[in-house]
C-alpha cells in the first residue's frame, strides 16, 4: 500500500536473464551430449578442449597456460583454440564463462538458493585476493611439477567431462562444492576460491560489454540486487556513485549474469557498452541485447 512501486513487472521481465543464462548453460552441455547420445558430432571433446564441426578447435586458455609453463611448448592447434576462446571472453566479459557456460554455476546457484531459504549466516569470508593466489599457485605448481596441476581436481572440467564421458566419483566434488557453499561460506566457491573464475576475470578486465546502473537515481534501496548478485561488491561503485562517477560496473569480478536486471523493481540496470558516452536513462527500453 505504502510502496510506490512502478507498474508490476511481468514474470518474463523478472526471470529473463536467468532463463537465457540457464538455457545457454544447458544448450552448451547439450551440444556436447548429442554426440555420444544421438551420434550427432557437432562438438567433440569437452570444456578442456574440443573440436567443432570437425574443423574449429577450442581450448581452455587456463589449461594451455598451465601446459605451457609445464613443458615450455604448446601445439599450434591448442594455441589457436585458446586464442579463439580467450578472444571471445575478452570481448563479452571474462566471467561470462561463469554465468553463461560453466556447469558448476548451476550447482553453486542452487546452493545459494538453499542457503537463503534456510537463512544461513554468511559464514567464512576468505581473503578477497585468495582466488588470485590460488590461480598463481596453479601456474607455479604446474611449472614446478611439469604437469597440468589444476586439472587433477578442477571441478569445472571434472563435472562437465563427467557428464559427457562418465562421472565416476566426480559426484563427490559436486556434493562437496554444494555443501561448502551452503554451510561454510556464502558464494564460497565461485565468489572466493575458484581459480578458473579468477583466470577468466582477468581475461575480461577491459571487456566492453558490461552491466550499468543507468537509472541509479531511481534506486529505492531495496537491496535485492546485492542479495542476488554472486559478487555484490562490484555493484556499489556504480550504483552508489554520484555525479560524474561511472554508472558502468567495471569490476572484473562481475559475471555479466544480468540477475540484477531481473530482480531490480526500479529497473535501474541494463546491459551497456563500457566505452564512449556514459550510458544513461535516456534509453530505458528493456530490449537491449548483450552484444
Amino acid at each position, binding site marked *: 500500500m505504502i510502496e510506490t512501486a512502478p507498474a508490476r513487472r511481468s514474470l518474463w521481465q523478472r526471470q529473463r536473464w536467468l532463463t537465457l543464462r540457464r538455457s545457454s548453460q544447458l544448450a552448451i552441455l547439450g551440444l556436447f551430449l548429442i*554426440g555420444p547420445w544421438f551420434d550427432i*558430432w557437432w562438438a*567433440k*571433446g*569437452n570444456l*578442456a*578442449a*574440443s*573440436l567443432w564441426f570437425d574443423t574449429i*578447435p577450442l*581450448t*581452455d586458455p587456463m*589449461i*594451455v597456460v598451465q*601446459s605451457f609453463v*609445464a*613443458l615450455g*611448448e*604448446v*601445439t599450434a*592447434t*591448442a594455441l589457436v*583454440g585458446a586464442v579463439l576462446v580467450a578472444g571471445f571472453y575478452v570481448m563479452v566479459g571474462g566471467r561470462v564463462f561463469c554465468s553463461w557456460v560453466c556447469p558448476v554455476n548451476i550447482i553453486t546457484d542452487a546452493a545459494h538458493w538453499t542457503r537463503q531459504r534456510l537463512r544461513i549466516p554468511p559464514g567464512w569470508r*576468505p*581473503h578477497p*585476493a*585468495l582466488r588470485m*593466489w*590460488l590461480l*598463481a*599457485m*596453479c601456474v*607455479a*605448481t*604446474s611449472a*614446478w*611439477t*611439469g*604437469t*597440468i*596441476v*589444476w*586439472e*587433477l*581436481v578442477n571441478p569445472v*572440467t*571434472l563435472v562437465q*567431462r*563427467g557428464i*559427457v*564421458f*562418465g*562421472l*565416476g*566419483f*566426480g559426484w*563427490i*566434488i559436486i556434493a562437496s562444492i554444494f555443501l561448502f557453499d551452503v554451510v561454510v561460506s556464502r558464494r564460497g566457491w565461485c565468489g572466493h576460491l575458484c581459480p578458473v573464475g579468477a583466470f577468466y576475470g582477468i581475461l575480461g578486465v577491459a571487456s566492453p560489454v558490461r552491466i550499468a546502473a543507468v537509472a541509479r537515481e531511481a534506486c529505492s534501496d531495496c537491496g535485492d540486487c546485492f542479495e542476488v548478485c554472486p559478487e555484490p561488491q562490484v555493484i556499489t561503485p556504480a550504483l552508489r556513485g554520484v555525479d560524474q562517477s561511472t554508472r558502468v560496473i567495471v569490476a572484473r569480478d562481475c559475471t555479466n549474469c544480468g540477475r540484477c536486471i531481473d530482480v531490480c523493481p526500479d529497473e535501474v540496470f541494463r546491459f551497456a557498452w563500457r566505452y564512449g558516452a556514459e550510458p544513461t536513462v535516456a534509453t530505458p527500453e528493456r530490449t537491449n541485447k548483450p552484444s
Partner: protein
Amino acid sequence: MSNGNKLPRSSEHSAERRRFIAGTAQAAGSVSLVGLLLASYGEQARTHPVAALRPPGAIDEQDFLGACVRCGLCVRDCPFDTLRLARFGESMATGTPYFIARDVPCEMCTDIPCAAACPTDALSKSLTDIGDADMGVAVVTGTDTCYSITGVAHCTACYFACPIKNEAITMEMKQENGKVFFVPTVHREHCTGCGKCEKDCILPEAAIKVLPRDLVSHDSGAHID
C-alpha cells in the same frame, strides 16, 4: 594534545597493518598448503595401475601429464571404443586416456586416428607406422597355466590374435620327454603392446599380459626395428 592524538592513531594503524600482514600470511600459507597437496596428489597419479595402457604414440608419462589436456578427442575417434578417460577416484590422473587390454585391446589402426585427433603432443604425430607403437610389451606371465606351455592343449589363441604374428609373437617348438610343445614367445622388439593376445587368452586369468616396457626390459625401452 597533538601527541595524544597521534598515539592512538598510529597504534591503530599498526594494529591494522598487523591484521593485514597476518591475513596475507594466512592466505599465502593456505595457498602453499593447497599447492603442496596438489603436487603430492599429482605425484601419486603419475604411477598408475600397470594394467592401464596409454594410447599409441603417448609420450613419456611425465611429459604426458603436462601435455594432455584431457579432452577425450582420442577417445572419440577410436573406432573400437578402446579408450576411456580416467574418472575421478580412479588411481590415475583424472581425465587422461587409457585402455585395459583385457577389456578392449587396441586394434592397431593403420591410420592411428586417436593420435591424429590429439590437439596436443600428448599423442605424438611422429608415430606414423602403428607397428612402431610402444604401448607396452606382452609377457607370458602364466608359464604355469598357459595350456600350450603346460601341454594341456595346443592352444595358439594369443598367436592368432596378434596383428603382427610371426614377428611379435611366434609359437616355438619345444620337445620334452618325447612330447612336443609349442611355446608362445614374444619378440619384444616388434611387440607394440596392443593387447590383442591378452584379450584373447582363453584362461580366466590371462597367461599373457601387456606390461609397461620399462617394467620388463631395462635398456630404457629402446624400440629396435
